């Protein structure tokens, strides 16, 4: 019953739109699809989208784990406020974030004005895109890692210490491996979110074709040109790549779950 409901629901919400997408892009035929996929502008947009998303997710994994650790293990005044701030990117309309980030990192912005003399341009470059994606992806890592960290008893660390492990060995051999599945999930979520992100990016990206144009924007451009087949083709390619990546991450997770017996 519950299973049937779940499947029906998934079909309605996820599968039917995806089938529509596949159907639409199929009208191009393999040759047409290949043509769109190998078009340099499409290729560059995909490269930028997946590249920045990947870098942003990696950075988020690092800082997200640190932030989660501080929130779980330290008691300091203002901890609750920081805990709440982590959720801000969830709640803030992404366009607002995009505009705010752009004004900060633009040549005359708060931060941009200090970076500009150093020859570092952030706004309207892939670096800017990455920063926007770091912003929207952070809570995904923090919120997936945090509960698992809370479960780790300090006793496990103390056990490692009594066995002679120094702090570094305890972190690298005991804590991080124990968190690895959660970190991977956080990475996957942050990455997936970043690949699909539109609102916050288009303001800061500058949207120069071949340089800072992301794939979702290219889809919108094609739609505005009434090139529905072209738009759905790019969408289908993104879907394929995303699906493949999530599939691999899931495999790794299933493997580690079998090993560590999580949830048993």
């Amino acid at each position, binding site marked *: 019953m519950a299973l049937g409901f779940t499947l029906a629901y998934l079909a309605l919400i996820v599968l039917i739109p995806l089938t529509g997408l596949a159907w639409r892009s199929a009208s191009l035929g393999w040759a047409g699809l290949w043509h769109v996929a190998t078009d340099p502008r499409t290729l560059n947009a995909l490269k930028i989208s997946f590249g920045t998303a990947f870098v942003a997710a990696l950075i988020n994994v690092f800082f997200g784990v640190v932030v989660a650790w501080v929130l779980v293990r330290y008691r300091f005044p203002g901890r609750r406020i920081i805990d709440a701030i982590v959720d801000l990117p969830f709640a803030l309309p992404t366009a607002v974030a995009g505009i705010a980030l752009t004004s900060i990192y633009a040549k005359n912005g708060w931060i941009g004005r200090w970076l500009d003399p150093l020859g570092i341009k952030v706004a309207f470059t892939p670096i800017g895109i990455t920063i926007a994606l770091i912003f929207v992806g952070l809570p995904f890592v923090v919120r997936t890692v945090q509960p698992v960290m809370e479960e780790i*008893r300090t*006793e*496990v660390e*103390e*056990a*490692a*210490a*009594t*066995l*002679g*492990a*120094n702090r570094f*060995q305890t972190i690298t*051999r*005991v804590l991080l*491996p*124990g968190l*690895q599945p959660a970190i991977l999930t956080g990475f996957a979520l942050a990455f997936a979110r970043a690949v699909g992100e539109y609102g916050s990016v288009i303001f800061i990206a500058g949207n120069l074709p071949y340089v800072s144009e992301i794939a979702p924007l290219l889809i919108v451009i094609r739609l505005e040109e009434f090139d529905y087949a072209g738009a759905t083709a790019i969408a289908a390619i993104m879907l394929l790549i995303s699906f493949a990546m999530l599939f691999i991450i899931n495999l790794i997770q299933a493997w*580690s779950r079998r*090993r*560590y*017996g*999580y949830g*048993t």
Partner: protein
Amino acid sequence: MDVRVSGVRKEFDRFPALHDVSLEIKSGELIALLGPSGSGKTTLLRLIAGLESPTEGKVFFGDEDASLKSVQERNVGFVFQHYALFRHMTVIDNVGFGLKVRPSNTRPAKDEIRRRSSELLDFVQLSGLEKRYPAQLSGGQRQRVALARAMAIEPRVLLLDEPFGALDAKVRKELRRWLREIHDKTKHTTVFVTHDQDEALELADRVVVMSQGSIEQVGTPDEVYDKPNSPFVYGFIGESSRLPVRIENGTVWIGEKSLGLKADRPDGDGMLYFRPHDVELVDGSNGCIAGTVVASRRVGATRRVELMVAGAEERIEIGIDADHPATELSGIAFRPRHFRVFARD
């Protein structure tokens, strides 16, 4: 390794968890820290391990001041109540962890680590489970892995915090006997925490009874059971009955009646403690405690009767033979075989 705790006080945010605790543990001894919840057992154990540092006082391992050493350097085996196994490591990797993290000049070769780990797993009767993960073991098995892991580093002292606390009664009993056997074989100096008096009395060479951050009594199981040296120990270990009494010229009185018991206490009010089952019934009413039965119930092989003692407010319990004819309202007179009088609180 001898362990000496000397004048240790421990405060958490000004809250005193231990006051002036001193304790000498002889090499090879199996010692139980016994006491109610919050009495400071875990704190004392963690201080010995170096997981906490004393506010005042010192801990010695042999002649060496361990207070100057970090946890890592102290080389103690610590077994946590909730096992604290590394769940992403197999059983054998858990056991070998302490050897693997040694600096390279003292680290045994990989094969040697494996060999020693499986030997230990054999020793704790877990051979065949090397490849399992902790999640795939029962509670009792996990606890044995934790013990093997602690023993792998050839610890100078083995410290166990309520090692059987999270297990069911049957497994507890098995592991208890088994721990004693292991100790007899390895002769590790061992301190374990428990709030189960049966466990402490059955297992330990000496029992340390703790209450409210202080040591009340240290002694063999016989000593703490038969010669409790404080009202607390009387009440905490085994059963006890107590009666408010008065001391006059070295004898014990209730009201206007002498009980025919001697007490070496100064004259004045006191509280008489004795074991309910350690009494002899007497005829007559002089030189004894006489009372009226107000309730009686069967407890195992004996009968427990509740008495109202003339001249005392409180009711007391004593144990009598199951076939004793006493019923409600009949009179009974008895004399405790062993007793002590303490100051009234």
